[in-house]
């Protein structure tokens, strides 16, 4: 195996980022993975595909999203905090970037159906949206636990014409939704594309999804440089599988900015995981001594994942990015703080990244530093759950 060390360059031909990645898929899926890789390489080298991708994201997706400076919170924390506003993108998160790319690719491959997994529902809603736009059939696999935590997102997907398939195996969360989507893909691969939602899975998914998300990193680089006259000292993003982080990191990987990924404390694959193979990739995985996968636990369905994208494992390995974690309580505090002080209700996922910034300001983040936070999604989907949790804690009537 050959290795690469250019931060966030192309993986090797076999899909390796250093010692992570690869293609650990059943033979029934391997021809589809190879076909997808060829189709993506062809599309990504085609200016017409880029033009269509960018045009749809502009006219339909609401790009470019702005960068907002948080004046009051910055003042309180003693840093200069900027937000890349992916919460303002269509469907309420960065997920739209990836699904538009994959839905266009699905059509280019002559396939008529998409399947997708979803945790919090954001990728499911985005997939259903892209499918509706492009006239594709869409089925979304969602853990039964998550369909209850995110019942409104189930309705949204159905309203958009998708079929939602509750998954009752295993822990009934994101990990099991991925398993079920892969199982379905095996039998429907002839006319179906698996629209994976993060920088994970067998090659070419981790690379392809990062490439589709890199649009937000490029935008942010230009916007922040205009605003600051420099790159930020810190670029911070939450990490489940790691697609929003990969998107924003890719815009700054060649710069001096420190890159910080923040995982949920109950799903911290970098700090508490070990190398393993899950969902088609070699990466850092939460597992026991026998190699059985350990279930992640987080208040955020979108970060409830026992692995992490292989490129993040590689960036941690070579020291180009650092990975921290945040717990449920500080995340709730951060969510309320941003809402009250800046008028922005964040999704629970980016509230993890914000919680770390609040904790690290004046410590790991020296006072006076410039910090760019990728506000990967808006909190609308989470408000009912947050209210319940605050009520249960006696913090809300």
């Amino acid at each position, binding site marked *: 195996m050959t290795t690469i060390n250019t931060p966030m360059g192309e993986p090797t031909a076999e899909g390796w980022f250093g010692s992570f990645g*690869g293609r650990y898929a059943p033979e029934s899926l*391997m021809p589809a993975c190879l076909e997808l890789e060829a189709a993506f390489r062809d599309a990504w080298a085609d200016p017409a595909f880029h033009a269509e991708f960018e045009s749809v994201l502009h006219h339909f997706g609401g790009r470019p999203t702005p960068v907002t400076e948080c004046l009051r919170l910055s003042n309180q924390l003693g840093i200069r905090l900027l937000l890349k506003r992916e919460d303002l993108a269509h469907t309420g998160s960065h997920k739209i970037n990836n699904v538009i790319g994959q839905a266009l690719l699905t059509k280019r491959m002559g396939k008529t159906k998409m399947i997708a997994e979803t945790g919090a529902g954001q990728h499911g809603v985005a997939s259903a949206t892209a499918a509706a736009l492009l006239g594709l059939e869409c089925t979304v696999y969602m853990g039964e636990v998550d369909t209850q935590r995110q019942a409104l997102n189930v309705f949204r997907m159905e309203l958009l014409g998708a079929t939602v398939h509750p998954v009752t195996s295993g822990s009934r969360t994101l990990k099991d939704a991925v398993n079920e989507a892969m199982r379905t893909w095996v039998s429907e691969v002839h006319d179906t594309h698996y629209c994976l939602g993060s920088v994970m899975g067998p090659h070419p998914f981790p690379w392809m999804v990062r490439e589709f998300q890199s649009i937000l990193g490029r935008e942010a680089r230009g916007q922040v440089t205009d605003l600051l006259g420099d790159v930020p000292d810190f670029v911070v993003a939450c990490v489940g599988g790691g697609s929003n982080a990969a998107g924003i990191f890719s815009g700054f990987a060649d710069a001096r900015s420190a890159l910080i990924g923040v995982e949920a404390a109950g799903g911290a694959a970098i700090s508490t995981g070990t190398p393993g193979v899950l969902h088609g990739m070699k990466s850092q995985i939460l597992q026991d001594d*026998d190699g059985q996968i350990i279930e992640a636990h987080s208040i955020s369905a979108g970060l409830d994942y026992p692995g992490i994208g292989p490129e993040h494992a590689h960036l941690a390995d070579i020291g180009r990015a650092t990975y921290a974690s945040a717990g449920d309580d500080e995340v709730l505090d951060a969510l309320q703080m941003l809402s009250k002080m800046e008028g922005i209700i964040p999704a629970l996922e980016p509230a993890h990244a914000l919680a770390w910034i609040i904790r690290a300001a004046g410590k790991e983040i020296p006072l006076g530093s410039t910090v760019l936070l990728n506000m990967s999604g808006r909190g609308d989907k989470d408000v009912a759950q947050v209210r319940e949790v605050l009520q249960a804690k006696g913090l809300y009537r």
Partner: protein
Amino acid sequence: MIRPRLETHLRAQVANGRKLLIPYLMAGQCPEWLQVVEGLAAAGADAIEIGLPFSDPIMDGPVIQAAAVSALHAGTTPMGALAELSALNLEIPLVAMTYYNVAYRAGHERFAGRLVEAGVSGAILPDLSLEELDGWSEVALAAGIDPVLLVAPATGVERTAAICQRSHGFVYAVGTMGVTGERTELATSVHEVVDKIRPLTDLPVCVGVGVSTPAHAATVTAFADGAIVGSALVRRLLDGGGVAGAVEFISQLRSAIDEGPA
């Protein structure tokens, strides 16, 4: 524990004109699983696939998933199950089937060593693709374990040739595009996948995934060397069929195969 090696045994059986029957069960799926293994061997199995439970089996349908959950809940571990197998007296080879993370986490050498100690001489890791085979394949062969590779209906001819070249023991022909599980009808792709493999190898070709009934087994062994029956047996055991139920089913499969298709 000396048992015949997988490839040697299967080639000899085929050379004698025998059609192969390879049942699958999940280690630890029921308390009497070791007695079931002995029963299957006595009732005409030519080799037995032993599933080692993994938490996230992406090639398996609901029945084998349920067996894995049952085994893991009962406290079965892959290494513990292998240790239990070493005590059995069998005159047929055993093949382990699990997912690559179990082997990777244990370490290739250690995993191969445990297989050998258990008297297992073949290994099927369905999520270890041809592209990622280096490393495990060499260690397995050096230890005396035949890595069995799979060919799917979607696999192209060139790729099939490359897989056949690196498969040992037998070539596992995946009968249908889908996960493991019982089907009412045998897929039409079964014939095509065997025809694709045949000219590319002299290894025995055995069909699994979707081979569910004695009639299916008889049909596939008319053109393939063997039939692999998993979910249909695993379901009977999950339903409480026990050793007697397993032996009865395997005897039906054996007779149907020996008599040939109706």
